[in-house]
């Protein structure tokens, strides 16, 4: 039998291939093989004791019970099954997943897993916890997969099978394409990755055949896409109804700064708010009807409309109500009408000191770990229970990303600005679509929108990311202020530059019209207000080879890639042209 951790000595149980050698030694061994996420939660557990419950009355705070299957089990699994060849190959993810399903889990841990399921018959989350996540302080958010299982079959054998399938699925995800790409992009060697697995009691309540938490979310103590008046260090929180998949997958969420909880996301109109707020949520399907597919992440998950949640009576703290007659939102559920997930009772009416708690946790974790953090959490109400699910380090701007004043005005600079959203370096862009400065006229913005759509369609079809340079307020409703495009018409742009010139001196949108897409797709967004001294090097741009010429726009294809650098900490950014070497 594999060594298990005595529960009273260690907050999480560990299932390991390493033989028991005494409690303290095992503790050290255990820490070594539990991976980044589990270690993060271990640190967080100690931190939670520092939270002052006086400031957050009425909320129980915990980390759901969990068992970690150590990396020694993963090592044994990989050694005893002929998986290495397919794992490191370039075959499709589903073939890797199938191969892992065919393989056998080390027999030494089977007893522990069965014992676990004898005690736990509630829905479980099977999560990854890779060693690289810890040692490299890389977030790996959304890179490895999580599987939720209902774990409610009548017989233990069925539940055991489902658990084993889920563990193998999470292990397989170590080698999926997105993980390989991520390692490549971050200079990590995927061969060194070892995957521990967290088996965690799922937070939520059962409503007939539906199991889900009322609230889930992600909070970050640093935000590269702050919306005024928030600053990057004020952080950001994204909230959703139901399972956190909505947030992690970049679905419709309510995003706000924990320093300014009553300031809503920058929606243009009430109708935008209705369109852009969450109306479907994820849950675990507790019925016996599901499509058997052990290599599908959502095998036991379903999406339901917010109306189902209203029937389940879980919206009390989460919604406002839209009044069709007066076109107005009222906080709470006092009136009849569509419910809108604004989380106003929590954030405006403070029915529960939720935002205080999030602030406290972020501050405590950041000061304990000495770097910005990202947490994932879930909540159930009545009684109110806040569960911390994950703690991850945040990728913060490194020293090399600090942009100096000299660089902004350097000779090899195509574009520079001190009003830039995003963070990091982008080096694979060779195409630029721009609005011609000499013939730009606000009278023509509707036609320009059509031209941009055509460029976007063509470049998307050819899978070519591009820099988009426009004048005025991009995405405005008012064609006299800028180009009235919808996100779909420019969605292939990886860098967007909103510029001004003598005949377009307007307040720029600074990304607010598409903030959700920009955040999710990590688009670098340059704003160049008329008042700042930096200008685009039009002379250089107009010398570049033209691939498509429109009436008011032009698409140029460069011989070499551009280098786009954004210092997210200061909000400064720079785009180097391809003729001069980028400074080290």
């Amino acid at each position: 039998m594999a060594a298990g951790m005595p529960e009273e000595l260690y907050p999480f149980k560990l299932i390991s291939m390493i033989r028991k050698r005494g409690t303290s030694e095992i503790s050290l061994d255990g820490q070594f093989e539990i991976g980044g996420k589990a270690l993060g939660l271990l640190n967080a557990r100690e931190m939670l004791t520092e939270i002052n419950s006086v400031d957050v009355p009425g909320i129980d705070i915990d980390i759901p019970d969990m068992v970690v299957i150590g990396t020694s089990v993963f090592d044994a699994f990989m050694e005893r099954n002929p998986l290495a060849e397919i794992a490191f190959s370039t075959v499709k993810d589903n073939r890797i997943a199938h191969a892992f399903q065919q393989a056998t889990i080390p027999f030494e841990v089977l007893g522990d897993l069965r014992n676990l399921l004898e005690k736990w018959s509630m829905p479980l989350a099977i999560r990854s916890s890779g060693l690289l996540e810890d040692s490299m302080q890389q977030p790996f958010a959304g890179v490895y997969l999580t599987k939720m299982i209902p774990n409610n079959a009548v017989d233990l054998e069925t539940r055991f099978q489902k658990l084993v399938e889920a563990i193998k699925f999470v292990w397989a995800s170590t080698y999926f394409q997105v993980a390989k790409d991520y390692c490549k992009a971050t200079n990590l060697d995927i061969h060194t990755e070892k995957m521990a697995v967290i088996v965690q009691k799922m937070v939520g309540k059962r409503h007939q055949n539906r199991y889900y938490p009322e609230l889930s979310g992600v909070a970050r103590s640093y935000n590269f896409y702050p919306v005024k008046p928030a600053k990057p260090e004020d952080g950001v929180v994204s909230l959703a109804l139901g399972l956190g998949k909505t947030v992690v997958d970049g679905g419709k969420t309510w995003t706000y700064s924990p320093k300014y909880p009553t300031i809503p996301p920058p929606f243009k109109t009430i109708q935008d708010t209705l369109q852009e707020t969450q109306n479907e949520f994820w849950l675990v399907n507790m019925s016996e009807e599901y499509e058997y597919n052990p290599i599908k992440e959502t095998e036991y998950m379903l999406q339901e409309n917010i109306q189902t949640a209203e029937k389940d009576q879980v919206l009390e703290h989460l919604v406002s109500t839209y009044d069709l007659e007066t076109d107005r939102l009222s906080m709470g559920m006092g009136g009849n009408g569509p419910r809108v997930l604004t989380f106003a009772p929590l954030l405006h009416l403070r029915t529960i000191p939720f935002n205080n708690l999030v602030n406290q946790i972020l501050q405590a974790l950041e000061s304990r770990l000495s770097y910005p953090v990202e947490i994932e959490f879930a909540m159930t109400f009545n009684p109110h229970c806040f569960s911390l699910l994950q703690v991850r380090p945040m990728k913060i701007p490194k020293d090399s990303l600090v942009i100096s004043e000299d660089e902004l005005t350097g000779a090899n600079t195509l574009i520079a600005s001190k009003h830039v959203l995003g963070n990091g370096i982008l080096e694979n862009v060779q195409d630029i679509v721009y609005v011609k400065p000499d013939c730009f006229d606000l009278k023509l913005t509707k036609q320009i929108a059509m031209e941009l759509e055509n460029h976007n369609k063509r470049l998307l079809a050819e899978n070519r990311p591009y820099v988009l340079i426009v004048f005025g307020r991009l995405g405005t409703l008012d064609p006299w202020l800028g180009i009235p495009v919808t996100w779909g018409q420019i969605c292939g742009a990886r860098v967007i530059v909103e510029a001004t010139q003598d005949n377009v001196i307007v307040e720029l949108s600074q990304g607010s019209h598409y903030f959700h897409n920009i955040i999710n797709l990590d688009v670098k967004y340059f704003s160049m207000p008329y008042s700042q001294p930096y200008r685009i090097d039009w002379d250089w741009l107009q010398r570049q080879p033209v691939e498509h010429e429109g009436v008011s726009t032009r698409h140029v294809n460069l011989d070499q890639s551009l280098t786009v650098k954004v210092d997210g900490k200061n909000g400064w950014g720079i785009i180097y042209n391809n003729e001069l070497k980028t400074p080290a």
Partner: protein
Amino acid sequence: MSVIQDVIANLVEKEIGQPEFIQAAIEVLHSLEPMVPKHPEFIKAKIYDRIVIPDRVIMFRVPWVDDNGEVQINRGFRVQFNNAIGPYKGGLRFHPSVNLGIIKFLGFEQIFKNSLTTLPMGGAKGGSDFDPKGKSDNEVMHFCQSFMRELYRHIGADTDVPAGDIGVGAREIGFLYGYYLKIVNANTSVLTGKGLEYGGSLIRPEATGYGAVYFAQEMLATRDIDINSKTCAVSGSGNVAQYTIEKLIQLGAKAITISDSNGTIVDEAGIDQEKLQFILELKNYRRGRMSEYAQKYKVPYFENKGVWDVLREQNIKVKVAFPSAHENEIDQNNAQALVNNGCYCVSEGANMPSNLDAVNVFLNHNVLFGPGKAANAGGVAVSGLEMAQNSIRMTWSREEVDQKLQVIMKNIHRNALEASETYGRKGNYVVGANIAGFMKVAKAMQAYGIV
């Protein structure tokens, strides 16, 4: 040089830095060319010269304190353009783009829009460069109160009655009206777009859709055609489209299409009351996609295609079209396909859904074409009806408001048609609407002498 050209040249010379206003004035003035020779009295009274200059422009500072205790300052505007036919009436826009040129442009257009409704409403517009987007409720309230602290002395039930516009919805109207009430202590109809509890009118969400159908009914009546049993196409699935379909069902017509940003459904059996209920539930409550309609009722669904593309590609015949989704949704090809497939009436529920080429196709093929400024005037009309109810201290039932809306749409149609006939473009509602709107104001101005 014609008198119109003179006025335009003068405007370009004097109104420096207001390109939006100049553009709007040029468009309106050009559309009046057919009537100029018939009305030398307007030239004599310099009506064209006078109408492009506002009665007065009010500009003021709007200081307020944000949630961090910082003092913020915005610019406030109210351009009272013309009150020849009634109290100034026009929206307030809160948006960072707002400047004097934009407000003048909007106020100028409002004169003719209001006049066309046949209700006694002059033209005005106002607003501020304040951006409510991303502001807390408290900040919006503080701003609105500061805005009203100056505006209150310039408005009144018989003087100037602002309404909402971009950035000014029910929340802002509530804050503005609440503060007016506080400082003036008079519960009068000084704003429209109010909540039902404090003076708002019923039928506001329905007005534009119902109005577009009434306008189509009137156009068809000129050719002795009854809309009953006619196959109709409706685009969009917002308020306008939903209530267009509701009214079509009530009148016995058959709407066969509806769309959202993801695609279009074609239900050749017609959307009946039960199906419409499903749509209302789907779009307003579930906020789901039209593909769910296709699944439920087993009808074709065309993903990522608009109604007019689908009708063209599938050669589907409709008699009446109600473009109710967005600007420029019908281009020349789609317009030609509609004509080829037997469409003889188009009533625009949205603002400028047919582009210029499409409009020309309709006019050249003798299609009854109701331009948005006339066909979708139902919304403005209900603002007028809100003022009327407030003035007589009465609240009309849904049926009463709907009945009055129908009368207004009939009047708009009659005036536009008569104007088109008088000036030699019979049945051209584009020309007719522009001239009808202008004529009423011009005649009133002339009656007042030189003031």
